[in-house]
């Protein structure tokens, strides 16, 4: 089954290949809303997520010649962004021992509601409150749908560690949501 891209996208890609800055800006603004959540759910904050996204978009601009029109552009870009984000985490982790447990307990304030009724921004807040080594596993499992074997291969950890981290992330998310919810109820 072949995918027929939008003609305006084809023209935009052609202009980007030619190095047109205005076309690149339009391209950037068009796909930024879809791609930023990919980095946001892996990284600590928005600044870091935007920085990694910019580097991923740069790689995309440099690789537009390799793009085949039969593929969906959005998925192709998301793949680049996710690979760039994971590479960033992996490289940084080597230096900082990012995946080692560390004391990290920032205050979280989310809307008063059940876990299954939270808005996206509150979800992102709760995710950012997780330690890095738990957040990455949780995002890969819940948002990207990877199984534990794939996560273990991706992060170079054991399957048991992946399982433990996912369970620990769920537990912490519930605890943090509960504590935040209690705090909100006491303040209201």
């Amino acid at each position, binding site marked *: 089954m072949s995918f027929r891209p939008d003609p305006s996208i084809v023209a935009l890609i052609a202009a980007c290949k030619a190095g047109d800055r205005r076309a*690149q*800006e339009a391209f950037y*603004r068009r796909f930024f809303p879809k791609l*930023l959540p990919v980095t946001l759910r892996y990284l600590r904050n928005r600044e870091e997520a935007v920085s990694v996204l910019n580097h991923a978009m740069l790689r995309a601009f440099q690789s537009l010649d390799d793009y085949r029109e039969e593929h969906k552009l959005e998925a192709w870009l998301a793949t680049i962004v996710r690979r760039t984000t994971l590479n960033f985490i992996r490289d940084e982790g080597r230096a900082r021992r990012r995946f080692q447990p560390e004391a990290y307990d920032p205050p979280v304030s989310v809307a008063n509601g059940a876990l*299954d009724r*939270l808005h*996206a921004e509150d979800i992102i807040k709760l995710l950012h409150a997780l330690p890095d080594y738990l957040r990455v596993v949780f995002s890969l499992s819940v*948002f990207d749908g990877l199984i534990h074997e794939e996560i273990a291969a991706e992060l170079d950890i054991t399957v048991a560690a992946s399982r433990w981290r996912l369970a620990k992330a769920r537990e912490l998310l519930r605890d943090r949501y509960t504590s935040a919810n209690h705090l909100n109820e006491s303040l209201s």
Partner: protein
Amino acid sequence: MSTLKDHSWEEHWRREVDQYAPQPSTADWAGMHQLLEGTSGTEGQRTIDQEPPTAAAASWQAIRELPWYQYLVLMAAIVTVGYWLGVRQSGEIGEATTEVHPATDSLPGVTFAPHVSINENRTFAKDGNRSAAARRDTTYFTQRVVRRASRNFPVAAAQARRIYIDTTYFLHANGNLSIRYDTVYSNGSTSSAEGKTYQPTEQPAPSGSTTVGAPSPAGVVTNAPASAPPVATDQEHKPGQPQRPTATGDSSSSGVYRPGRSPYLPVTLSVVVQPLPAWQPAPGTTYWEHRVQKLLESGRLKIKQTQRDNGHFPPINQRF
């Protein structure tokens, strides 16, 4: 949220995050634009011609490209010129040694004990210190003093042989100074470093003999022929060929053969014994205090003030 196994909220989270679409700010695009500008600079590139090599570089390049036989000839020429320059320089130094005046010592006033043998001496000059021009120094002794000076006298340029004159000053307990000359003919060997046991053939200074602590009149000429007859050797020698220009008299010195040294040959030369500078210690001043004071005045000795507090702990100059 009911149980730990209830993960239905995760599906809600997935949908929420998928629908989340934050809009880019101006700062976000500015960062991206900066990134793009930093990586795209191809239009600003241009080819810069390499500068032509300088004359020195071109010469070096030409030398490097020489064939091996020309390179060999070039190296041989360089070595030859260097050897010639070295020989020429060595000759100049050899000539200079003949112009050197006898070293002058400063003799402190020393009172010998009665039981001390007056002819007992010490030799301070090392064998090999024959280039008096380069190695002459002033040595101060605190006990009975003998200075043995060695000088080079080229006999003949063609022979490339030299006569070494060993001069020994004997300081007697009565204050008189006697001088002994040892004439050593060196055939190039360095065996003269051995055998320091001298049989002193001393001659007292004839007139105005130098007294310790009191300078004698300038230009005291001491002629001190050795008493021992010359030892016949197969070495040729032309007596008196190198003459000191300041000679005021002639003296001949016969060498005495001693084991471990080169054969001695007689040589005629004149030696001017310069007066020894006097030193009279100030009352209550030891010789070394006087010496330190002189060194301080001449600037050869400097007292370095230690800094106790120089920002380091311990202070840098206090560490060792």
